[in-house]
């Protein structure tokens, strides 16, 4: 009975050893190298390879930016639509003004209210653009830098060296994300280093593949 049990365990052990070996072989497979091209960088660029004319705060001398990532352009659509709605609202309301009861503001005050309203709309547009624009991630030849801006008074910048990255993955949930090809990228780093989340990034599969190949190159 004991012998049977032992042989069974031995067989199981053998199988698991084979599985481990197979996993090892799989893990040593290097992703094919990715060729990076030079992209023109615009104020609306959400993805740019080897961008020229951009730098970040802690960039070392000689450190090359390989990739600039911002949230996909399509993610700006909601606030752009809201802004357009806010812009066209006052002209639409003017015909209704005579029907408002007991409102007798002088023309200068009405003009001031309107001017203040449009100033606030411009402020809204500016804030939304600034939040998108400065929320950027960089992949350089040595590390990954992620600048997170939430609201106008919160900022968080984190970075990790490429050889300390353990795992890179992405999720693309929903029809809109699949249609416009954007998703969330998760970068897991070793030890107590912070993990990265690049949210709503364009071409996530390509970025993950690129980071993977850079990581393998570093190792």
């Amino acid at each position, binding site marked *: 009975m004991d012998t049977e049990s032992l042989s069974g365990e031995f067989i199981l052990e053998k199988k698991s050893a084979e599985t481990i070996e197979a996993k090892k072989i799989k893990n040593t497979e290097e992703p094919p190298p990715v060729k990076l091209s030079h992209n023109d*960088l*615009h*104020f609306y660029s959400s993805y740019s390879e080897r961008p020229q*004319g*951009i*730098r*970040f*705060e802690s960039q070392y001398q000689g450190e090359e930016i390989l990739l600039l990532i911002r949230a996909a352009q399509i993610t700006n659509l909601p606030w752009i639509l809201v802004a357009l709605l806010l812009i066209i609202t006052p002209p639409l309301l003017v015909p209704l003004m005579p029907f408002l009861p007991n*409102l*007798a*503001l*002088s023309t*200068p*005050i009405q003009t*001031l*209210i309107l*001017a*203040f309203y449009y*100033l*606030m709309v*411009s*402020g809204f547009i*500016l*804030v939304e*653009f*600034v939040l998108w*624009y*400065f929320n*950027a991630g960089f992949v350089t030849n040595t590390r990954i830098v992620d*600048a997170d*801006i939430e609201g*106008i*008074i919160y*900022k968080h*910048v984190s970075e990790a060296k490429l050889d300390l990255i353990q795992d890179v993955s992405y999720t693309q949930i929903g029809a809109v994300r699949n249609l416009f090809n954007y998703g969330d990228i998760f970068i897991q780093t070793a030890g107590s280093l912070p993990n990265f989340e690049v949210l709503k990034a364009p071409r996530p599969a390509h970025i993950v593949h690129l980071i993977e190949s850079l990581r393998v190159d570093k190792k």
Partner: protein
Amino acid sequence: MSIDFAQLITTIVNDQDLIAKVLLLIFMSLYVFFAIILLTQVKHLSKIVDQISVTPIIKGISALHLGASLVLLVITIFI
């Protein structure tokens, strides 16, 4: 004396322009404060991400936004 005070209150309440002006002054003062914070933050953030061709324009627009807020506040005070 109490009749004068009541009349004064009635006059103020009935003067819609005055009420609107006071409210505008309060909100515009707060808005100028917000515009200053926005400009300061844009300057700080420009150091984190500096796109040479675009960042000065964003800084300029933020400064223009603050300038417009101040001009509007001054106009409201003197109108």
